[in-house]
């Protein structure tokens, strides 16, 4: 944790709560009576990288939408540091506006917040450079590859400089080469910016590679079945991906996931 404190930039003077996100006894039941989630408890400390891992339809996306405030829990309490005003969300699909250029897509959150034009331009330029898309600012989404669209989506989530980044299987639809590259980019981003990241995925390998905590969930309703800490030397890179340590973690988490699938009754 001392490393974390040192790495936080000096410009960051916002007071930070102990937990960035805290869920207590959260459940979600849909209108048809299907129990999708919970009861679900999760505390995520500030600056942590947590993966929610589970089979499709286990309610992990629902949990993420509840944290973002896009969906109301049926019961339980949700506490988000900063009252949820400081959240960046990356969807499973790039979810870009096809009628707007890359630049306008990334500028959207600032435009909605009615920030002054110069301010918007400065932030958009910076974040586009950060994700390596400065040259494509005037391109339209359909002119970009899947990986580049995802980068635009990531840039849009980062442009408001949120404290918390919520990512809903963002790289699931990408090919493996692109996914590995974006994994590394995301790790670098997290290392530099020290955002709190909650990352939903169904890939054991991705969750172990990226996160410091892997939370394994059962299906229908989604509950926490097991939790793993991935304590390894930072920063991580391709060396870690090919190490015996990584393989061992993957085996452990994999076993946890099959136990969770057994509990879920399928």
């Amino acid at each position, binding site marked *: 944790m001392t490393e974390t404190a040192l790495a936080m930039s000096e410009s960051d003077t916002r007071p930070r709560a102990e937990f960035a996100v805290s869920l207590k006894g959260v459940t979600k039941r849909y209108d048809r009576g299907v129990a999708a989630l919970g009861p679900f408890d999760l505390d995520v400390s500030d600056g942590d990288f947590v993966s929610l891992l589970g089979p499709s339809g286990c309610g992990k996306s629902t949990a993420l939408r509840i944290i*973002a*405030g*896009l969906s109301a829990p049926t019961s339980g309490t949700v506490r988000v540091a900063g009252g949820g005003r400081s959240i960046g969300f990356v969807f499973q699909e790039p*979810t870009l*506006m096809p*009628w707007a250029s890359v630049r306008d897509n990334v500028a959207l*959150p600032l*435009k909605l917040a009615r920030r002054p034009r110069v301010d918007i331009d400065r932030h958009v330029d910076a974040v586009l450079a950060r994700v390596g898309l400065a040259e494509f600012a005037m391109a339209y*989404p359909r002119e970009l590859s899947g990986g580049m669209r995802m980068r635009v989506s990531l840039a849009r989530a980062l442009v408001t400089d949120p404290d918390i980044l919520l990512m809903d299987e963002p790289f699931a639809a990408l090919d493996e080469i692109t996914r590995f590259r974006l994994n590394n980019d995301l790790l670098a981003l997290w290392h530099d910016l020290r955002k709190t990241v909650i990352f939903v995925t169904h890939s054991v390998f991705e969750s172990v590679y990226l996160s410091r905590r892997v939370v394994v969930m059962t299906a229908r309703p989604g509950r926490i079945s097991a939790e793993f800490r991935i304590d390894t030397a930072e920063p991580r890179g391709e060396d870690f991906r090919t190490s015996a340590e990584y393989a061992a973690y993957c085996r452990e988490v994999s076993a946890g996931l099959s136990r969770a699938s057994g509990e879920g009754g399928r």
Partner: protein
Amino acid sequence: MNSPDRSAPSDMRDSSAVQRVSIARVVLPIAVLMAGVLVWDLVVRLNAIPPYVLPGPELVATTLVKDWPILWQSLLATLLTTLEGFVAAAVGGVALALLFNQSKWLEQALLPYAIILQVTPVIAIAPLLLIYLPQQTAVIVCAWIVAFFPVLSNTALGLNSVDRNLAGLFQLHGASRMQTLRYLKLPAALPYILGGLRIAGGLSLIGAVVAEIAAGSAGAGSGLAYRIAESGYRLNIPRMFAALLLLSVTGIVIYMCLAAVSHLLLRRWHESAFGKES
């Protein structure tokens, strides 16, 4: 297919095939038109059909030139009516769809009447409108009644077709209703609105013609449809054909203009504006 020496000729074959298709799209309809005119001419000549029953294409063409001053004035009158009806339908249809989108209550209260207005044949309403309204207004109202519904229903469909996650994103960033409408719903609905307008363009011409014909017996009109009715009474069949030809061409031009506008607005981003190859 992976080796370059094989894919190169296949590319060439593809592009020449594409060219053939686009040439065929122009040449084939023209060939059909010419064949049709030829058959028409032959039928008239061989059967010696008198012009007051069926005039030949040559006579229609000369009538078009000879009567041009009258027909041109009528064309302008019909065009103006169509345009006014179309603008009213576009503004009314989009505005009503926006209102419906903002208030479910309003939609439930008014939508049945919009549908009734749509399914009642305008030719049956036109005489009534001519009784209650000044003629020029009645004609425009007719054009509006026929044309506004496709704009309304298409716009409503477009406004409801917004990507759910994008809507979530707007919600997450605390977008106001106006912001959501301006930056999300209207752009997302634009392809649908333009589709509705393309239908409305042709329909407002039909509405204008129907009303002019209904008003024709009153004798105060001067549009193309009125010319057709008047020429019918006077057995001036060649002029009827000439006016009919002008009406068709007007309809085609309106459609092409709206298609061009649609293409211009959507060419950078919408799938409909791209060829099959992409």
